[in-house]
Every structure is written in C-alpha cells, then in structure tokens.
C-alpha cells in the first residue's frame, strides 16, 4: 500500500537527518546554494548555546580509528584529512610532534597559459600551466610526549562531526587533542586537553613551504607570513594560541607554551584568488596575511568549546543528510582498527558491511571537507604532502573531475556540487576566449577541419585561471555539461539551470560548428548520412585523431538531448533547442563490432587500443549516461556489446578505473561484479601498490613502488555503492538494482538523491525491499521498480510517500 506520510519515529536514520537539518538551521550554517568566495572577511557566526555533539555511541557508528600516528614522511597515506571546503590539512597526530600540512584550494602557480606549443597543444608545466601547492606546515612540538612512552594511543576520524581526536596515556595522565577545520570560523582549530593533572609544554611553529619568512607578534601572540607567487597571487597564513593556565608567548618566530593544562591553537590562511576572469582571478584589495591574522585572533577570542560546537553544528547538518547500513559486521571485525580491518577484509575475503558502509561515508566526509564553495575538488581533493603533485593536482576533464562529482547528488550532498558548477561558470569567459582564439590554430590536430569555431571547450587539464594544459579535449565540454545537467535532474532547481545555461549553450554551439557530415553503410547494406565528431583521441589510448569516436558521439548526443530539455524547461531558445535535437537525431551512434563482439570505441570493427585500458570512454552511454539501458528499451545487441566490452576491460585495474567499472556493472545489474570492484579498491595498498592507504585515501601505483593519491576513486567507489542500491533517471527509479549477497541480509539507506527530483529512503531484508520512502524535492511523478513490482507515484514538492510490499 502506498501511504503518503511524514517520517515515522521508528525509522533509524530519517529522524536524525531531520534533526541535523534543524540543527544546522539553528546554527545559521550556510548550506544554501552559492558558497563564499575564496578567502574573505566574514561576520562572526552564530554560536550554538547547546552542545550539538553526538553521543559517543551515535558517533561511533561513523568513526574510523587507528592505533598509531602517521609518519611525517608518509602523510598522504597516513595523515588524517580535515577541511572546511577551502582550507584543508593532513594531520600526523604524533603525540610529540603534531604536524599539519595545510592547503588552500586556490594556492596555485601558473596562469592563463594561452601560448600554444608548436604542435598546437598546451604547455603543461608548474610555471606556465601551474600547480596546486601547499600553503603551510604547522608543528606543535611536545618533546616530553615521545611515542615510545605513551600507552593506549588511539586516533579517531569522526566522519559525522568532522573531527580528528587523538588520545593517549602518559605517566598516569590521559591527554587528548581535537583537530577540526571550521567553516563558520574559517580556521583550523587544535584543542589540547588532559585529564589527570597533566600539562603541555612545547613549541608551536608555522612555516611556509615556498621559502617564506615567518614573523611573530608578542603583543597579540601570533605568528604569520605572507608572500606572493610570480603569477602575482598573494597568500598568507597566521597562527595563534591561548591557554587558560600556564604561559603562552612568542619566542623568536615561534610560539612557546609551558605548564598549560589546556591549549587552543587556531590557524588560518588563504590567497587573494577571486573566481572572476574579468578581474584576472585576483582580488587586489585583499591582504591574505592580514586577513589570516584577523581570522585567527577573532576565533581565538572564543572558547575551544564554543568553536567546536559551532563547527559540529555546521558539519553534522551536512553529513547527516545520508545514512547507510549495509548490515552488521562481526564482533571480531569491530575489534580491529580501520587499517587492521582493511587488511583483514582482503586477507580473509569475509565481507565487512560496516567497513564498506564507512568507505562510502568517508567519501562523503572528503566531499564535505573539500567542496563547499570556492574551488572544486581536484585530483587530490584538497590535500597535499608536497609541492609537486602528479599532474599538478589539477582538474582532469576526461574522467577525474566528473567522477569527483558523481557522488554529490546521489549521496545527499547536492550543495557540495556548487563548487564544481561555480568553477565552470567562472572559467567560462576564459575557456570561450581561448577556444575562439586558439582552437582552430593550424597546428592543432583536433581543430575543426571545416574552419568554423563557436562556443567553448577545454583541454584535458584545466587550472583555476582559465588555462588549459596538455592536449585539447574537444568532448570535455560535453562531459562537463553532462555532470552539470544531471545536478539539475536531481534538484529540479530552475535557478541553477538558468545559471549554467550559458555553459550548455556554448558547448552546443561548439559542436554545431564542429560536426562533420559523412555517409555510413549499415549492416543491412543501406547507406545513410550521419553527423560525426571531427578528429579526436578516445581517452587515453588508440589512434590520436579518429573521427566519430564513440566517446564524443555519446557525449554530444547527451549534450544535445539535455540542451533541448533545458530550452523547454526555461522557455529560452526553444527553436534552437529543436534544431539541436534534430542534429542529435542525425548523430552516428556506435555499433557492435562483428569482429570482437564489443561496442565499437572507434568507427572500426578492429580493436585499435588496449584491451584492458583503464578508461571506459566508449561506455559513457552506459555510465554516467543512460542511453544504453538493460531494460529492453535499448536493443539487446547494443547492451550485449557494451557488456562484452566491459567484460574485456577486466576487473583488475586501479582506483577510479575500478570505480567506473563498478558503476557500469551496477547499471548492468551484476551485483557481484560491482561488489568485487569495490572490494578491489578496498584492498590495502602495500609499497605504493594500488588500493586503499591506511587513511583510506585511494592510491594509484603510477610506477613500480611509487603510489600516489587520486581522490576520484574515493568518490567513484562511494558512488558505485549508491548506484548498486538505487538507480534513477527522470521518471524511473529502481530500488536495489544490484544488491550483492554481502549486503543482502538486511540494511537501509536514507537520503539518496533520485534524478527527477526525489530523495529516497530504502530498507531491505533478505534482498527484498521492505519499505521505501520517496520525498519530492521538486519531482511530481515517477515509476518505482523493485524486485518484480512496478509502482507509479505522484507527489507534490515537499510531499513524501512510503511504499511497502514491494517485490
């Protein structure tokens, strides 16, 4: 029976979600669209008067923990990440030497990079294109707290409250430190406390990583530095400390403290980056070092308790929008710390549903910490352990940035998507300008052979200054638009759709100017005229310039389809929308190779690339697109060809490639294959090998023995977990499309975004949906499929319906 209702109190996750939202609203936390500009002055946030903290038992459901600190030499694998969406840090949690590697998402070298190389492609260096770099290192030295002397060491990453806590016993005293990156206070706070009569004595040092000089101010007790890059970007950071007991004072360029029963350290910093192409991406009036001082001194005027409450209220409100339970793990598994658990999961091959659910929540934690206003998550999210990240820590537009944002709407983090949309909008003037001036340069093998140019596109790599790096990537614009439009499908937010409209239209115009007309002969022998993409490279293998690659054909098909829908929704350019839709109908679409049985990647029956290549470019129509559907609406041979190709690509790739495979298998409803790919990414990384690091960052073995962090897998794998539980496209929702045996016994998920404008809560037992609730966030009707049952529901925005006896 279908009963519209409000959530019942016996639902484990739903009430808490409501509670969190109310909490966030009470705290005045900004969770609405449109975040802060990069680094700016802000009014003092409202302070919760009551503790918003979870009870220890509730908090434990979303905690990762370890029994040893991180090494300063392995911070990417072992540091624990915190972030307020802009300002991030990796913390070592060593008792004797807390180390924070601090980042600001906007601290980039490089610039517009609009002088092409002789081959018509972009330079790709740290000076011209630029690189994401570290802002500062903060160390808190406590020489008496040598790790060799402490007992019961434990550090915890509290995903729900955005909190890193370290505790240990030393000489009869229990010491505890909490680290959090507060969005309301725009600062990172370290609070040192103890129980049992202990005190802290040590030194606090703030240092830049680009040879800056730190100075300190005795009167106000802060240390700070400021500097600028060759590209003119100004940046700075500041730290201060307070204690209710003992002495805290400046000595040289450091802050020393002694006999402090408690200690609160506040650090902040930023740049004068502005997301505005017309201003050259700078805010000339902003003095980052001065602003950083103001922020840390303002925050330090409040108690650590008040700062913590303000932060937790803000963080919980966002985190609480999705809850997941994939089943109970064993007592033995629960007894293990996170790293032991990851290793045991691999060794014993015994499912650990709580660990697997925690992996999803960790992905959400990273997104909340790294994508709230400001710049979007790059290849390393917001976290660095040096100034030479591979591929510059940039935005890769041929899978990586797209994958970063597949999770957001699915996992109750629609607001985190804004950073991505705002980035594209801010870059659009430069992307348009560079495309029009340079794309058709004669040296560019990917230029429009017809000589026309319109709209915009991007390079494979993009930076925050409107610049591209490496090679031109014509279809990148269509793929960015695919993500951008899908966000509308989830949220049904017309204001947002209007905002991104110029991006969609510019991409459409680019393709209208680029498509070529050619004649193909079908299997039946009939010939027909079709539109194909000009010379391009199917990422990142095979022929360098092939026409009509499946990747481009599918993405452009999707772009044109979405554009038509947009014009109708907004009532803008509807005539042009119909024109574009007619172009879509003429687009060549891939066929199945009679030689390989695979969906063709190139307009050729031959396998022109690497069979097990990491990219699934020819399957973009399966995922993230859904032109290819295993539900009878797509010709069986196309589905079979896509399946055969996916099969041939194999199950043993790395991070994001496994995640993408998992998402595709979920779409094909092969639950066990999808699950296996999640398990593959949970494999512990050893000696730089592929898999999960101790801190669950995904590691890609870029060369023998050298693993690097690529955050996309953390998000893509988490997205796959959701995609196995809920599939949606506008007007169609399928519950538990690919539920693996490991999670089948019982479970639930709440707060899952549904394309078409709904949020779904689903509970199951023995593989069958026992109860599902859909709430409209703008959607009015959809088909709901579960097991063998199909229901049609109709709702007004704000209403919800609960379905039982499904399947």
């Amino acid at each position, binding site marked *: 029976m279908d009963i519209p209702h409000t959530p019942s109190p016996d639902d484990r996750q739903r009430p808490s979600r409501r509670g969190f939202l109310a909490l966030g609203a009470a705290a005045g936390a900004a969770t609405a669209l449109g975040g802060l500009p990069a680094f700016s002055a802000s009014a003092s946030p409202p302070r919760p008067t009551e503790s918003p903290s979870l009870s220890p038992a509730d908090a434990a459901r979303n905690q990762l923990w*370890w*029994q*040893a*600190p*991180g*090494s300063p*030499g*392995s911070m990417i694998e*072992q540091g624990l990440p915190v972030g307020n969406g802009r300002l991030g840090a990796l913390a070592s949690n*060593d008792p004797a030497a807390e180390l924070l590697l601090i980042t600001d998402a906007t601290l980039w070298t490089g610039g517009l990079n609009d002088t092409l190389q002789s081959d018509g492609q972009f330079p790709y260096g740290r000076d011209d294109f630029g690189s994401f770099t570290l802002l500062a290192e903060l160390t808190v030295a406590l020489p008496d707290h*040598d*790790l*060799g*002397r*402490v*007992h019961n*060491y434990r550090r915890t990453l509290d995903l729900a409250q955005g909190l890193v806590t370290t505790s*240990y016993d030393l000489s009869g005293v229990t010491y505890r430190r909490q680290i959090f990156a507060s969005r309301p206070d725009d600062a990172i706070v370290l609070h040192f406390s103890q129980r049992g009569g202990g005190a802290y004595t040590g030194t606090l040092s703030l240092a830049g990583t680009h040879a800056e000089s730190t100075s300190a101010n005795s009167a106000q007790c802060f240390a700070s530095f400021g500097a600028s890059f060759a590209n003119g970007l100004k940046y700075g950071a500041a730290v201060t400390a307070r204690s209710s007991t003992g002495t805290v004072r400046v000595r040289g360029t450091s802050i020393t403290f002694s006999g402090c029963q408690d200690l609160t350290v506040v650090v902040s910093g930023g740049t004068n980056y502005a997301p505005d192409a017309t201003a050259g991406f700078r805010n000339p009036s902003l003095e980052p070092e001065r602003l950083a001082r103001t922020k840390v001194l303002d925050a330090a005027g409040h108690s650590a308790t008040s700062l913590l409450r303000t932060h937790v209220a803000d963080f919980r409100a966002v985190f609480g929008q999705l809850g997941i339970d994939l089943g109970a793990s*064993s*007592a*033995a*598994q629960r*007894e*293990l*710390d996170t790293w*032991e658990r990851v*290793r*045991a999961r*691999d*060794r*014993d*091959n*015994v499912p650990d549903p709580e660990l697997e659910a925690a992996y999803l929540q960790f992905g959400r934690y990273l997104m909340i910490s790294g994508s709230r206003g400001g710049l979007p998550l790059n290849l390393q999210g917001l976290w660095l352990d040096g100034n030479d990240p591979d591929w510059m820590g940039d935005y890769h537009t041929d899978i990586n940035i797209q994958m970063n944002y597949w999770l957001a709407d699915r996992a109750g983090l629609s607001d985190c998507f804004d950073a991505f949309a705002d980035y594209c909008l801010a870059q659009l003037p430069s992307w348009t300008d560079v495309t029009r001036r340079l794309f058709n340069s004669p040296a560019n093998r990917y230029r429009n052979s017809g000589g026309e140019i319109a709209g915009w596109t991007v390079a494979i790599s993009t930076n925050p200054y409107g610049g591209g790096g490496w090679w031109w990537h014509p279809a990148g614009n269509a793929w960015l638009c695919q993500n951008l439009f899908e966000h509308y499908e989830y949220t049904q937010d017309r204001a947002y759709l209007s905002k991104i409209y110029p991006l969609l239209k510019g991409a459409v115009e680019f393709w209208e100017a680029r498509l070529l007309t050619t004649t193909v002969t079908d299997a039946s022998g009939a010939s027909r005229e079709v539109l194909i993409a000009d010379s391009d490279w199917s990422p990142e293998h095979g022929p360098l310039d092939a026409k009509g690659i499946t990747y481009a054909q599918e993405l452009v098909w999707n772009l044109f389809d979405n554009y038509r829908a947009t014009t109708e929704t907004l009532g803008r350019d509807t005539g042009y929308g119909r024109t574009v839709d007619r172009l879509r109908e003429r687009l060549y679409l891939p066929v199945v190779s009679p030689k390989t049985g695979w969906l063709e990647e190139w307009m050729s029956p031959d396998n022109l690339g690497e069979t097990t290549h990491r990219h699934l470019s020819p399957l973009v129509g399966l995922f993230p697109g859904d032109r290819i559907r295993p539900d009878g609406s797509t010709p069986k041979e196309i589905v079979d060809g896509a399946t055969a190709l996916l099969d041939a690509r194999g199950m043993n790739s790395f991070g994001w490639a496994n995640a993408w495979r998992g998402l595709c298998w979920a779409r094909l409803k092969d639950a066990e294959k999808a699950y296996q790919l999640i398990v593959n990414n949970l494999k512990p990384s050893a000696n730089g090998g592929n898999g999960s690091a101790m801190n669950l960052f995904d590691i890609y073995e870029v060369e023998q023995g050298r693993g690097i962090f690529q955050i996309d897998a953390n998000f893509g794998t988490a997205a796959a977990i959701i995609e196995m539980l809920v599939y949606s496209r506008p007007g169609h929702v399928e519950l538990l499309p690919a539920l693996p045996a490991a999670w089948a016994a019982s479970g639930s998920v709440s707060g899952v975004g549904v394309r078409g404008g709904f949020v779904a809560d689903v509970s199951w037992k023995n593989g069958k949906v026992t109860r599902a609730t859909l709430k409209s966030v703008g959607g009015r009707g959809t088909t709901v499929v579960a097991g063998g049952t199909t229901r049609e529901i109709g709702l007004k925005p704000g209403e919800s319906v609960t379905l039982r006896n499904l399947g």
Partner: protein
Amino acid sequence: MRSSSYPAPPAARTGSARRTMRAMLVLAVTAGLATAVPAAEATSPARDTAAAASTATADTASDVAAKPFMGWSSWSMQSSKYPGLNPDGEYSYLTEANVLKQTDALASKLKKYGYDRVNIDAGWWRDNDWKPGFDPYGRQTNDPVRFPRGMKPVADHIHSKGLKAGIYLPVGLEKEAYGDGKVPVWNAPGCTTADIVHPDLRTTNGWDSSYKLDFADPCAQKYIDSQAQLFADWGYDFLKLDGVGPGSFKSGDNYDNVADVAAWQKAIAATGRPIHLQLSWSLDIGHAADWKRYSNGWRIDTDIECYCNTLVTWENSVNDRWDDAPAWSDKAGPGGWNDFDAIDVGNGEMDGLTKAERQSYMTLWAISKSPLYTGDDLTRLDSYGVSLLTNREVIAVDQSDSPVARPVTPMGDQQVWGTRNADGSYTVALFNLGDSPASVTAHWASFGFTGNASVRDLWNKENLGPHKNKITAALPAHGSRLFTVKPGGEALPTTGYEAESAANTLTGNASLAGCDACSGGKKVGNLYTGGKLTFNDITVQKDGIYTVRVAYVSGDARSVTVSSNSGNGSSLKFPSTGDWGTAKTVSVQLALKAGSNTITFDSGSGYAPDLDRIDVPRSV
C-alpha cells in the same frame, strides 16, 4: 646446507628426545589438560645440547660465559669516521690512553650494572699505517706508539678497576710473521714457522691475511700455545679470534678454521688461566656445534659498524639482526652465546640512530641474550643512552636463565618476539621495523594462554595492569616495547591438526616426509612452485579471527601464503628454525567461521617451509 629442502634426518639422539616430548604434548592436548605449548619446552632439547657444550668448555673454567658478557669494545670508535675519533688515520683511536680513559669511565658509570669487560680489538700490534709488529717468535707484539708500555700494564690497570681485560687476534699465521719460514716457535724446540703452515702457503681467514695453519704438524699447536701463554702472562681474560671460517664471508677447506678454534681452546686450557674465547664474524651456522664445543661465543652476523660518519646506522647493519637471529636461537646457552656485536646505543648523535632505534637495538640484544658490549665513547654518554644501558630490568632479561626469545609472528615490518620465563611469565617484545609508526599487537594466544594477564613495561618501568587476550602498542618507526607478561592462568583450549593427516589435501609436489622433530614424526614438505597443503575440516565454535599456531621446519627463512576458506590470504615469511631438523612455531591470524573451515598453505611461485602441524583455538 642452509637452503636444502630435504636434508638427511638429524642425529637420532636429538630426534628421539623431541619425539618423546611431542608425544607427551599431544597426549596433553587430547586430554584437554596442559594445552599451552610453552616456548620454553619447545627449546628444551636445545638447552640440553647447550648444557652438553658447556660441559665441554668447563675444563677451562666453569664460570666462563655462564652468562652473556657485558662491557666495552674499542672497534666501533676505531672504525668510525666520526669527526675527531681517529685523528692519526684509520683505526688510530686504539691507544693506551684511550683504552684507559674508557676503562675508567666503564668502572665509574657502568660497572655496577654488570659491564666489566674492556676489550681491545684489532690493531694493538699494528702502527697507524696498519703495519704489524712481531716478537722474535712470530707473535704479535704491541705497537710502541699505541701502547708504549706494552700490553700487560694495560691489563693491570683494567684489573685494578675490578674489570676484565680482552684482546684480539686474527686466525692463522699472519703473513708478515712468516719470516721465510725461519722464525722459531716459542717454547717449541725445532719448530719454525715453515713447520706450522702448508708448504703451498695457502691463505686463510676473512681477509686472506694469514697462512692457514697445518695442525698435522704438532708445531702448529705449539704456536697457538705460545700465543695463548703470552696473553695469559699479560693477564688477559678474553680473546676475540677474528676472520674465522667457515664464516667471515668465506667457505671451503682453506677457510675452515675449526681446528684453529679447537687448538685455541686447548691452548687456553693449558695456560691454566680462564680466558673467554670469542669467534668472529658471520660464523657458519652449519658449524654451530663446533663453535659451541670449542668457544664461548660467536658472532652470528657481519660487523654492526657502518664505517661511516657515525658508529652505526640502522640500515647498515643494525636491522639485519632481526632477520638473522632466529636461526641461531637454539644455539646459545650457558658457556656459549650468540654474539650480535657491539651495542652502540649510548650517544644518539655519535651512534647515528634515533631514540627508537637505540631502544629496539638494546631490546633485541637483551631478549636474544647477546653479549652486551658497547662501542660507545663512555665519556660522552647522553642521558637517554645511560637510561638504555643501565635499565636493570632489561639487563636482567639478557642475563636471565630464560631461553633465547624467538619471533612468535612471521617476519615483516611488525613483529612480536617472546620467550617463557622460569616463573611462568613471558618476556614479550614488540618491534616495528617499518619506516612509519605502527601499532603492534601481541596476542596471548601466540604463547598458548588466554584471558587476563598483567603487563609490566620494562623500558618505561610501569605496570600497565591487566590486559585481556592481547596488548597493542603504538610504536615509532623502528621502535619497540619490552614487556613482562604474567598470565592469569587460563590455558587456551586448542585442537591440533597434523600436516600428515589423511584428511588434508596435498597439491602439486607436496608430499609427506619423516621428521623426528615433528609431532607425529611426520611433516609435509616439497612445498614449492605451486605445492600446497590444505587442512580440511578445521572446526571452531564461533565466527571470529583466530590466532593459529603453525609448527614448521625451515632451515632458512621462507614465505608461504596462508589463507582460510575463500580468503586471499597473506604471504608470510617464517623465520628459520636453524636447520632442517628443528621444528618451531609462529602464529598467524585467520578468520574462521563457526563449523567447518579450511586452512591452506600455498607455496605460490617460491619455496615454502615444511609443515608439521597447526593448533587452532576451539573458540574465540
């Protein structure tokens, strides 16, 4: 020898003793009584052998090497390029003035903790250009610049401080002492150097710096007698015989110095002075019985010193000892000890080690009952160094009657070692050999007990109270913990499964073989390149992660992938058991489900240890 998979069965004498003991244990397990297999019992036959060896040396002096010796040695500072140590060229640190300075410092700072040896190492008869000096009888004589008053006054001074004096020689007749074969041998009328070596002047020792002695001619023994008498006359209490083979990176007949060592034992006995005879370096474990029979200690490894700007470094070669020690665990005992080389932990800056590394260094030496002789500048010990060298509880571990500790986990970055003490407690060491901090857990089940046990932290001198089933500690990179663990008395009920059981599945080349040291007298071997042993029907009461004890035989360290049910398992390196006739035990962690399970040992693409049996807790 060390690498053969299938050696001949060991001597029946040892084998029968072990078989009897094993049979008793099996009986006990079946009866559900004493189900723990204490580490002490596992090594008891070796102790018998060690006792026999000490009887052999008892002729010389019953108390020589009753315990691992403690003291100071000159070589670490001689060999270092640390600024200022060797101002007159390489190895020039060795002078009377420096030896006496260190003697006085040892007496005043460390003697009360048991450090009572001052050992003069190589070079006392060589000038600063390393040119040797000999007396008219071809015996090494003091370099007049280094030791202007000769060697006896040095020993006298050492004795005056209540300490014992040690001296050094390379094995064989040093080439420069040969003198065209015409040099007479002291107190051996008619004997000259031509008589004591082979006519072809074949060379010997680790540097080929000596002519090999030919003991077929009695003059050779006389030459050794003459050297021993000289040292006895000077009043030395200790001799390090260096470059000894097989060992010292040499093998083959020319480098077999067993006869030299035997001759030295005989010569020392003849002097009537108890002189401790120590052998160096990297002695061949295949000759362990010879070294035990004729000497009081043997270096199991290469030099600890780095010959660099510090005394040692972690990588070169402190950390080698964790890999190399297990093979020797049964070889040591009263009368003769495994010598891990100098313990240079007294001054962090000069040592070239972190605090954590220094503590781990001292910990391994202590649990292994290695001699504890520092090569540090005793006049410049730092306070942390003093705390390491003078921790009486740790020294007591080294000097105790407990068997030498062994790893109870496979080798790897995180290791647990332990041994059972006479009072029923266990000495348990945790090590993190990795380059990052890591937690290390000792499961009581690895030692055969369960429940609560009280834990004493020896380095931090703290009682940590009762710990249930295990203890976990956060260790710094290259760090350690050292505990005394007193079980609360709960034995761990286990079920034993023999490798040779007909219920098991053997794959590939895997096959049964006799094994006197093994329970049931059999084992499964030939586990190589795909060879696999699966224990079927392992039954437990509850789902959980179990500590499974694996008894195995492996003459060298070998890896095997251990898995349960459909698990991927993990590749684990089992430490050497010393030879192919000795069984030892390590513990592995595996998930088992209530009811029936399989446990598989897969050699993969390599060579795995031979397997004796596994003991699985009945429940968790």
